[in-house]
């Protein structure tokens, strides 16, 4: 770290720190923490929890996209879960039609969802805030009707790929991760790659451009930022992450069901993303855990589904009120306070 002292007015000293490679520290922390804890959990957890946590990893990936849009740009996308459905659809269709590697299906799902996410983002070029949120909610509502009617592919013929007379085929898992534990670790690897991509964006030029756009579009324009390109980039990235998450989910269960993609799921995903925390990568992980692991815990404890829903709503309200930066914000704040105490103690 180099420190440069500038010539300053009397009575003041100005210290400028040049950004260094230390700001990429998270790129090492993320895979270590995520994959490391996944391996530890995979050793001890039973089948129920491995399955739940694999779903949680996929949801966390989708949440990182939603969190990126909201945290970096202040744009609300209430169709992220529908984009997850689009990605799942593409992965299933390609998986049944061709004998390609799972990774190819993953990437294809991500790319198609990125394209659809970009289309969803077209209104964003003019809209902001609540209005944009509601428009994306309309997209989610439309997707709900369409996917209910079309259903997800399950090995049948035709474009929709639905088998009506034969038993449903399950999507094949990646060759290196056929077992449940293996697939869980695979999902956590994909999750950490996704989180690293987001983190890389935040620390380099796109992140700076997004910060400037958030500060004020006129300011950004004056600074020479291409508004359309960077907004489109953000939406595409969010869509890509959702698509990959959908493919992971499809691989986990082996198939997806049209009734599991109502617009209310996108609402819940956004709400829990805010609760998890949008300003830090670990917020997305918390979102995944909240949306899947906590729910699995309640199911495991045989808590009545309706009571679980009410508890969920209460917890959502409580977190929104008490923790504006989300759970991640609370934890990061805690770490900062502890580390500053330690730093201050040093002479």
């Amino acid at each position: 770290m180099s420190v440069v002292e500038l010539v300053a007015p009397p009575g003041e000293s100005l210290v400028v720190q040049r950004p260094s490679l230390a700001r990429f520290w998270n790129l090492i922390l993320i895979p270590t923490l995520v994959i490391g804890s996944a391996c530890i959990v995979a050793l001890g957890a039973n089948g129920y929890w491995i399955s739940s946590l694999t779903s949680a990893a996929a949801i966390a990936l989708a949440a990182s996209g939603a969190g990126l849009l909201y945290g970096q740009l202040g744009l609300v996308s209430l169709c992220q879960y529908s984009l997850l459905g689009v990605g799942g659809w593409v992965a299933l269709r390609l998986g049944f039609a061709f004998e390609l590697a799972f990774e190819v299906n993953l990437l294809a799902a991500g790319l198609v969802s990125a394209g659809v996410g970009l289309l969803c983002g077209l209104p964003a070029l003019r809209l902001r805030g609540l209005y944009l949120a509601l428009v994306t909610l309309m997209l989610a509502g439309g997707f709900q009707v369409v996917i209910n009617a079309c259903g997800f592919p399950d090995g049948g013929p035709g474009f929709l790929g639905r088998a009506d007379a034969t038993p449903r085929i399950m999507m094949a898992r990646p060759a290196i991760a056929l077992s449940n534990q293996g697939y869980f670790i695979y999902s956590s690897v994909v999750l950490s790659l996704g989180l690293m991509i987001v983190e890389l964006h935040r620390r380099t030029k796109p992140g700076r451009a997004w910060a400037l756009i958030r500060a004020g579009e006129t300011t950004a324009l004056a600074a020479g930022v291409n508004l359309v390109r960077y907004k489109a980039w953000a939406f595409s990235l969010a869509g890509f992450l959702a698509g990959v998450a959908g493919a992971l989910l499809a691989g986990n269960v082996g198939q997806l069901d049209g009734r599991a993609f109502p617009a209310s799921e996108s609402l819940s995903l956004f709400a829990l993303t805010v609760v998890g925390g949008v300003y830090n990568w670990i917020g997305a992980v918390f979102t995944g855990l909240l949306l899947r692991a906590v729910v699995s815990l309640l199911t495991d404890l045989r808590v009545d589904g309706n009571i679980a829903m009410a508890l969920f709503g209460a917890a959502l309200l409580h977190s929104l009120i008490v923790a504006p930066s989300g759970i991640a914000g609370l934890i990061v704040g805690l770490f900062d306070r502890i580390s500053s105490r330690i730093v201050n103690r040093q002479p």
Partner: protein
Amino acid sequence: MLVTCTAAAIWLSAGSGVQAQTIRCGMNNGQKATGVPINIGGIVSKTGPDDFSASAGAAEAYFKCVNQNGGINGRPINYSVGDDRWNPETATQLRAKLVDDQKVVAMVGSSSFAECAANAKAYEASNVVVIAGVGVPRECFTSKNYAPLNAGPRLSTVAAAQHLNERDGAKSFVCISLNIPNFGAWACDGIDVWAKANGLKSTTILIDPGSSDANSTILQAAALKPDAIVFCLSKSVIVSLLVAAEQQGIVDKIKFGSGAAAYASDLPAAIGPAWNKKFLTNMEFQAIDSTAPDNKNWLAIMDKYADASVSRDTFSQGGYLAARLATETLLKLDPAKIDRDTVSDALRKVSKFESDILCTSWYFGADAARHNANSVLRTSIVDENAWKVVSPCTKVVDPELADIRAYEQKSGMDR
């Protein structure tokens, strides 16, 4: 003191003697089972658009009764149920918990919308047989290891249409169902195929599950000028469509019928007096208030061992039958050798399970690729805020059942 105690003892034993007469389950010996528990699982769809959980509720009650009456040759049954909340992800997790973690020997009393498709392959791979109380979508009737006790929405809806054709001479039908490929489209397709094969007319109207416009759906159906309208929908949607039909004044102009989902004891009161003797429903099992012995046994077991909140409906009947079948099969096995393979083997060999709740005996069909043994059904009509049975057990004619009928003929289980 001694006299009181003796009197009390005689009264108590007389009481338990009376109970042993009216309730039959398992070994019927009144002894609590205390051996090594046998793990059995069940998955139901409870929280969501509809509640199917009464099936597992009945199975749980039956197994409790069995545990109080000698268990399975001394071994109690440890029954675990999960609510998959209509979500295939959750269904997969529950299957991992029950099959992989708890190592259940069989799945009994399931009734789920989401789990058949999600878990069928996994059950095959781990050699777990599922005796479901109620199966709903198509995958429950086209899987190798999955055998529901009920007939399924397709057969039930077709049976309603066939009854309307035979009793009321209806020649043109409109089938209204949900726009879900493996449920609504599949069920109404049954009427379509049957109608074509018999020179009748049939049109299908599929509606979105979230639709708020019952009136337009009824108008759309009535505009086709059918003799009869048949539903394959959930109870609450049926109520809203019947209300719309009543408000449009077509109660007397068109005949109305439904698959077995409408056969709920609270539905006649909900739809009101305008439908007296005008709305009929197919039933997959015996009438709920029937006094036939096994039906009475079911009600008695529910009263004694089940919570009052568990609905006494057709799902419950299915769960009771599944649990009874599983218990009787397990009792024939060597108690020291009850594991997944022996249980699956024994369940597959079930070929003449009799009950007056069913119209004919039920069989699994060991080497069949799919299982749909319950295909002889009754019909009821609304009568003064309750249901009244109006037809004897009738065989359903569905061209899609050809493979099942061929199997039945080959194995000497003609219906």
